[in-house]
Every structure is written in structure tokens, then in C-alpha cells.
């Protein structure tokens, strides 16, 4: 589809909601103020693994101004979880990490909350702690979950424990092919836990309405899963629970997995509100958030690849050990994705990878931006360079040698309709000056590619209502955290209805009114809600044309809509205002309500029949390594992306730049550090290093046209894929600069210096 066909999609108008945000009038979750609201707080475990012998709340309860104290005894004996139903909202019998919620308090002031939490006496019987997932798999490791079975799909004879997810990739006959390889390269890679560190603290407010219904305000990326799990854990029917989402001050997947994300802060707050019979609001402080909420897990990855002398890959084997943390959380899914992606996105005729997701006494894995992808790509794309080095081949050329073509399979994708990967490599080489740029001493150049396979997932709907003046009110199930409600959706609806973008309002998610949605996760916003909103706008337009046709004495098929006027094509004089038709609708159908869906089954059938167009990317960078201090400075960074058709170009660039920055942070400095007892050593922003403006290079983004995806107008998701290449891209540039291959993150001064010394 050529861009010229469109009026507004493909442009970059100012973000809807931008003015509110720059004048301080954006209403985020933590800005919610309820009448007579109490403050809530949570008592968290001081042990990473212990039995709870007793909890005495009597002194806390007796404090003047304390309105409720709750423990597991106040909640139904019901657990929650995604793959394994392994977690209580408040710990029962045992605690399994230092942030595990044990009790909660609602009181008149924050100071009183703190005082009351200190008065709760918990007697623990400490148990052995296991921090490393590889240790946790061993038979002698402590058992974290006594009643959780091992995955049913574990191969016979595998002796492991504490495993809560297993994924196996099998393609061809890797043993036979490996035996026929000319060169075999075998390596091990490791990434560390990072926290998404969105700026807006996690909050929940809850109140019981006079009619007995429960209202929960949550800054959650997935309000419907929150509603489902709040209802389940508190034993309420779904129609008695309402979850309202305000604007989100960042999430990055860290607020994306139902009540798992915030360690059940929503049902705990609701429990307090029920007991106190007052509205209660909980805001986590940043250090508390870092130790208790969901994270991007660390992974250990063993990878072995056989190649022919000419650079043709013949086989890969590998193993992934993925750290779920204390509960299965999103670990089973993220670890599965990491395992698949260790197979790479090049031609791979023979492959066997086993992936284990393992419980440890740490924070729980969530779907943080590209779950499993950055980890796998660190191993895959560093490994590609190691192989190229051993073959004496140029790393970019080695990648091109194994490039899939349209019609080929890659691991996790049955058939590709087209492949933009090679073009992203070509453009990235050109932009960075591959083979041309003159590098000074201790400078190096690196390249790494990535993909983010868009596979099956939940569908979703949209409702577009046309108001009497011709403006549109849109309901979707996705929230605004710098994502589609402020950018792509208004453009799509404006395009299809012939109205100005400023006439479109996308309503914040309210589970009483919005269509169900799995959440603003998985780069699925534009695919799911974009598709649904486009179809809903087209449905609304059809209803408008039908009513306008009788006014204009024309056939609906002969009508067009532009600048809020419905006209007979070729006879512009014959027209009627959209506002007139929308107002007139009151006397006919009441209101124009367009409905649309993203039908996941239909999408899958289409891809099965014709293949899929996946997003691909190549990043390239130039770094300078200070060999005295180990400091790595990025001098130039380019990000070349095929994300299909960019509906809101600036938003797409912003997603790419932000996602790349997050992984550049993980590459260079970010890491949650533990002591041997499972205590987080760097929970506050003072100690948890994140990229500031002075360490971040200008990320130069290029979008590659011509590879339409499954989304509206040929769009593909853009929120996560740029997280995939940076870790290896920077590691490869460091290797190019120093000749030292670093296989363990972060590439921090101390780690780089140690690696240089050991080399």
C-alpha cells in the first residue's frame, strides 16, 4: 500500500494527551484521590526462604488510627498463577523471597502505616536459600514448592527439581549433522536480572461501593487479568469487580502480568478496603518495588553450532536455564520464548535445544519488554561473531550466508512470506560505515540482528461511537503508557471516518465499559487493537453511509466521507454533514456504534496459508574501550528496523529508541545484585544504575519499507524488538576493539576490566 493513499496514517501528529502531560494535568494512577482515603502498606518477608511459624498482629491492630490489618487468614485459601497456580496473595505457611507479602495495614497516615507494620510480629523458621537457578535444579537443592509437580513434558530419565517449565526445540537430526560439520563452536552465555524501573511507582486504590461492588484503580498494563485474579483470589463474581486504569507512567511489561506484576498489591489493597470499610490507597516506594515486583530474568545459555567451511550452518544444540524466581510468574512463557530464540532467525536445518525454567528464592519473572528475547539474542548474536571469527569470515557476510528466503522456515515460524533481515543488515552496514570507517586504538565496530516473532495470541475488540457533532469516542482494552491510545489508534479512526485526529478520544480502560483485552503487552497493541479499531471505524462508516444514502438518494456504495462531509463520489455538491447524519441517528438506531475485532484464528489461518512477514532488525555500533578503567563509551549507534507500515512514525521511532536504550542500559550497567541470603543489594535508584542522558548515544533509527505485516495497513508491532540486538551488538564491538569476548553481562567497567586482565 502506497503512503499517498492515506490522509493521516503514516504521519506524526502531536500525541493525543500531550498538552495535558506537559502542563502537569496528566492524571496517573498515583494522582488518584478518593474521599476519606486511608494509606496502605505491606509487610514483606525478611527471609528469602522460611517457614512462617506465627504472625501476631495484636499490637499493630491496637494502634490508634490503624483501621485494618490483614494476613493470609483474612483471605480465601485460593492461589493464583499463570502456568503453575503456585502463589497466595499473602504468604501462607512459607515465604520464598525477600519481597514476599506477609501482612498489610491500612491507617490514617503513611507514618502510622510504617509504625504498625513494625508492630507485626512474625516468627520465621529459616530454610536453606538457593539463588542460582543451575544450583536449584540439582537433587540436593532445597525444595521451594512442595506440592508443585515437574512439567509433564520433561523427557524420561531427566533428574531435576524446582523446574516449573520445560520447552524443547527439535528440528532435523542435529547429532548426525554436527558430526558432519567442518567447524564446531561451543560457548556459554549469561545475563543478569534487571528491573524495568518505569518511573511511576506501582499503586492501587480500592473501595467498596455502597451497593457492595468493589472498585479498584490500578496502574496496570493488563486491567482485565487484574480483574479476573482479584475476583478469583477474593472469591467474588466478575460482575462485582470493576478495575479502572489511569494513564500509566511507564510499564515496559513490568506492569503487564495481572496481579503477578505487583505481587498482588491489587487484591491486598482491596482486602484492606473491605476490612477497613474505607477507601485505601497503596503506593510502593521504589526500593520496595525493586525487591518485590516482576523483573527481566537472568538466563544461562549453552550454545553449540556446527558449520561448513564456507560458512553454512548445519546444526545447533543448546540448553537454556531460565530463572523464574520464587513463583512461576511469566517465567514459563518467557523461558520458552528464550529457548525458541536460541535457535536463531537464520536458516537452521538441524536443531535441538532444551529450556528449563527454574524456581529460585528471588523476585519473580515478568513479561518485561521482549521476554526471553534480549537474553537469547545476547547468546545467539555473540555466538554468530565467534563462529565468523573461527571461520575467518566477516561477521555480516557470515549472517548473509545463512539468510532465509521467502518460503523458508526459521525456528518458531513455519513459513516466511518475505524476509527483510538481509536488507536491514545491508542498510545498517552502510549507516555505520562497515569496512570503511577508520577506527582509532581501542575502538571497535559491532553488528547484531534480531527478530521478535509475532505468534498466536489473544484477540481483542474495539467500539467506535459517533457523537452528534461527528466526533468519535473509542473504547479499546489497551492502556496509554506512551503507546497506541495516544498515537496510532486516533490516526486509524480519523483515517477511516474522514475526521480530524483531534476529534477522536480514546477512553482509558474501565473493565465496566471497555472490551476485554489481555493487556498492553507483547507488541500486540497495533495488531490487536489497531485491527479492531480500524474495523470498528469501517463498521461505523457503513452505518453512516446507509443512513446518508437515503438522505442523498444515492447508493451507500457511491458515498465517500471527507472533512466530516458525506458526499456522492463524483458529485461533491450532493453532500450531507457527518454531524447531521449522526444527530439524525437518534431517530433511527439511537447512535452509530461501530464494532470490530482482531480475530486471532483468522490471522493464524492466513499465515498458515500464505506465510508470515516477521519484523527483523539490525543494530550496529562503534565503541571505545578505556583499557585502564574498563569503561565502554558508545560513539555511534544505528538501529535499522522493518516494522511494516509505520502508522505513527514518531511513535514507532520513539518505541525503537526507548527499547534500544533499555537494553543498552542492561548491556552497560543495569543489574539487580543479590547477596548469598537472597537480599537485594541495590534496591534504590541510588544504587541501581540506569542510563542517563550523558551515557546514551544518539540512537539513529531507520525504518525499512516494503514488508507489510499482519496489522492494519501492513503494520507490525514495534514496542519490543529493539530490545533484542543491543546486548550482543555492544559485546561484539568490544570484541572488535579488544579481541576479548565477554560472555557474561553486564559490560560494566569492573567486568570489562576483569575480562581484559584474564584474557
Amino acid at each position: 500500500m502506497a503512503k499517498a493513499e492515506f490522509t493521516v496514517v503514516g504521519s506524526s501528529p502531536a500525541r493525543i494527551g500531550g498538552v495535558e502531560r506537559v502542563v502537569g494535568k496528566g492524571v496517573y494512577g498515583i494522582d488518584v484521590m478518593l474521599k476519606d482515603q486511608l494509606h496502605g502498606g505491606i509487610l514483606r518477608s525478611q527471609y528469602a526462604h522460611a517457614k512462617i511459624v506465627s504472625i501476631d498482629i495484636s499490637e499493630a491492630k491496637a494502634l490508634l488510627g490503624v483501621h485494618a490489618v490483614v494476613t493470609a487468614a483474612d483471605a480465601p485459601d485460593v492461589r493464583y498463577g499463570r502456568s503453575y497456580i503456585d502463589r497466595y496473595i499473602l504468604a501462607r505457611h512459607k515465604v520464598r523471597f525477600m519481597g514476599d507479602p506477609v501482612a498489610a495495614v491500612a491507617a490514617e497516615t503513611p507514618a502510622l502505616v510504617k509504625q504498625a507494620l513494625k508492630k507485626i510480629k512474625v516468627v520465621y523458621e529459616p530454610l536453606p536459600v538457593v539463588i542460582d537457578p543451575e544450583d536449584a535444579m540439582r537433587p540436593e537443592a532445597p525444595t521451594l514448592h512442595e506440592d508443585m509437580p515437574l512439567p509433564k513434558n520433561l523427557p524420561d530419565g531427566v533428574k531435576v527439581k524446582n523446574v516449573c517449565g520445560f520447552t524443547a526445540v527439535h528440528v532435523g537430526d542435529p547429532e548426525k549433522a554436527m558430526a558432519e560439520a567442518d567447524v564446531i563452536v561451543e560457548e556459554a552465555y549469561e545475563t543478569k536480572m534487571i528491573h524495568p524501573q518505569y518511573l511511576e511507582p506501582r499503586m492501587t486504590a480500592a473501595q467498596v461501593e455502597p451497593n457492595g461492588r468493589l472498585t479498584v484503580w490500578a496502574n496496570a498494563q493488563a486491567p482485565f487479568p487484574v480483574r479476573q485474579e482479584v475476583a478469583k483470589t477474593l472469591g467474588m463474581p466478575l460482575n462485582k469487580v470493576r478495575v479502572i486504569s489511569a494513564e500509566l507512567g511507564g510499564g515496559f511489561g513490568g506492569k503487564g502480568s495481572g496481579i503477578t506484576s505487583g505481587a498482588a498489591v491489587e487484591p491486598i489493597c482491596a482486602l484492606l478496603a473491605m476490612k477497613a470499610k474505607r477507601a485505601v490507597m497503596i503506593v510502593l516506594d521504589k526500593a520496595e518495588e525493586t525487591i518485590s515486583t516482576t523483573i527481566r530474568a537472568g538466563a544461562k545459555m549453552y550454545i553449540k553450532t556446527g558449520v561448513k567451511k564456507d560458512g553454512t550452518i548445519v546444526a545447533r544444540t543448546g540448553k537454556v536455564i531460565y530463572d523464574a524466581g520464587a513463583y512461576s510468574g511469566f517465567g514459563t512463557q518467557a523461558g520458552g520464548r528464550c529457548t525458541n530464540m536460541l535457535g536463531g532467525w537464520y536458516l537452521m536445518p538441524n536443531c535441538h535445544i532444551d529450556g528449563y525454567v527454574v524456581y529460585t528464592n528471588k523476585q519473580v519473572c515478568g513479561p518485561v519488554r521482549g521476554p526471553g528475547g534480549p537474553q537469547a539474542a545476547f547468546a545467539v548474536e555473540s555466538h554468530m561473531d565467534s563462529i565468523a571469527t573461527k571461520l575467518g569470515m566477516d561477521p555480516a557476510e557470515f549472517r548473509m550466508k545463512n539468510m532465509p528466503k521467502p518460503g523458508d522456515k526459521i525456528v518458531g515460524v513455519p513459513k516466511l512470506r518475505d524476509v527483510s533481515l538481509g536488507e536491514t543488515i545491508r542498510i545498517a552496514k552502510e549507516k555505520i560505515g562497515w569496512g570503511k570507517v577508520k577506527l582509532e586504538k581501542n575502538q571497535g565496530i559491532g553488528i547484531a540482528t534480531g527478530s521478535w516473532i509475532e505468534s498466536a495470541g489473544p484477540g481483542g475488540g474495539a467500539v467506535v461511537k459517533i457523537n452528534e457533532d461527528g466526533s468519535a469516542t473509542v473504547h479499546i482494552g489497551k492502556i496509554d503508557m506512551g503507546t497506541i491510545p495516544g498515537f496510532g489508534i486516533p490516526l486509524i479512526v480519523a483515517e477511516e471516518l474522514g475526521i480530524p485526529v483531534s476529534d477522536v478520544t480514546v477512553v482509558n480502560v474501565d473493565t465496566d465499559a471497555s472490551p476485554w483485552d489481555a493487556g498492553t503487552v507483547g507488541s500486540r497493541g497495533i495488531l490487536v487493537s489497531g485491527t479492531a479499531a480500524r474495523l470498528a471505524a469501517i463498521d461505523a462508516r457503513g452505518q453512516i453511509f446507509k443512513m446518508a444514502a437515503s438522505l442523498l438518494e444515492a447508493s451507500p456504495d457511491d458515498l465517500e466521507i471527507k472533512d466530516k462531509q458525506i458526499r456522492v463520489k463524483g458529485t461533491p455538491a450532493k453532500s450531507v454533514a457527518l454531524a447531521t447524519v449522526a444527530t439524525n441517528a437518534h431517530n433511527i438506531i439511537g447512535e452509530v456504534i461501530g464494532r470490530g475485532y482482531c480475530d486471532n484464528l483468522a490471522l493464524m489461518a492466513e499465515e498458515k496459508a500464505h506465510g508470515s512477514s516477521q519484523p527483523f532488525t539490525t543494530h550496529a555500533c562503534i565503541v571505545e574501550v578505556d583499557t585502564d578503567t574498563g569503561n565502554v563509551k558508545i560513539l555511534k549507534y544505528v538501529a535499522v528496523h522493518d516494522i511494516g507500515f509505520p502508522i505513527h512514525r514518531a511513535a514507532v521511532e520513539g518505541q525503537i529508541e526507548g527499547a534500544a536504550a533499555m537494553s543498552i542500559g542492561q548491556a552497560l550497567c543495569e543489574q539487580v545484585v543479590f547477596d548469598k541470603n537472597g537480599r537485594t543489594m541495590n534496591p534504590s535508584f541510588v544504587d541501581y544504575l540506569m542510563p542517563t542522558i550523558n551515557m546514551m548515544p544518539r540512537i539513529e533509527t531507520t525504518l525499512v519499507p516494503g514488508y507489510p505485516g499482519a496489522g492494519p495497513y501492513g503494520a507490525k508491532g514495534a514496542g519490543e524488538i529493539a530490545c533484542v540486538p543491543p546486548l550482543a551488538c555492544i559485546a561484539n564491538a568490544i570484541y572488535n576493539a579488544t579481541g576479548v569476548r565477554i560472555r557474561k553481562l553486564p559490560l560494566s567497567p569492573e567486568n570489562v576490566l576483569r575480562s581484559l586482565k584474564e584474557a
Partner: protein
Amino acid sequence: MSFTINATINDKKVSASTEASTSLLEFLRDTLEMKGTKLCCNTGECGACTIIFNGKPINSCVTLAADADGATITTIEGLADGANLHAVQQAFIDTGAVQCGYCTPGYIMSVAALLDRTAKPTAEDIEEAVSGNICRCTGYAKIVDAIHLAADRLSGRA
């Protein structure tokens, strides 16, 4: 112990009582219910709570409300001239520097203070002025664009 703070906030005289331990951020957000200034790290590390205090940008989370007695303060709510946005606010919108928008109020206050001091900031000036403002969404690229655009507009270069 509670006492009364008299300050000029966004050109208005304000008088309200506060506790000795209350931070200026809490005073603004909770006592005065001015929610535009954002709470994040509460340890002076992220810049989300930046306000202009007697002409200088400060982190209001690590400043005591008591210190505001007699002070002149501008917050994000007071930067625009009625419906006319400040050049920095407009530039953040025009360059796409507002994603989730949570760091935006603090960022804009730091940049407004910078451009008050320096009409044409160098890359080093910018780094120094906003290295205490963390943005987790943008990778800073479009924020840098916004700062240059605002500087150019304020000095008549654009």
C-alpha cells in the same frame, strides 16, 4: 511539630501548615493537591519532582517543606502563560518527546531553568543540566531534539 509555610507558588501567595518532616514534594502534592509534580524515587536520583525554587531547579522530594517559607516557586502548573504553552512545553510536544509523560514535568522544569541561564546551550550544558533527569521511555533522542528546538525558538532562531 507543625508550622505555617508562606510562599509564592506560580505567582500566587500560598499559606498552609505542614509538619517538620514533610518534604516539599509531599507539601505540593498532598497538602496543596498540586499533582503535576511527580513522585518517583523520593531520594533525589531521578528528577521527576524537579521544580524551580528561587530561580534554581531542585529535587522537591529531598527538600523540606519548611525550607519553602518565604520562597518563590514555579511548578509545571505555573510554566505556561494561560493557554500559551512555554516554548519548552511546546517543543516537547512537537518533537514527540512525550511518551508516557511521567518524567516530562520534571524534565521540562530542568530545561526551562537551563534555557533561562543559557540561550544557546552546548551539548555539554545540556548533559549537565538534565543528567539528573531519568527518562525510561525515549532513549533521550527526542528529548535532545526538544531542547534544541526550544532553545532555537526562544532565541528567535526558529
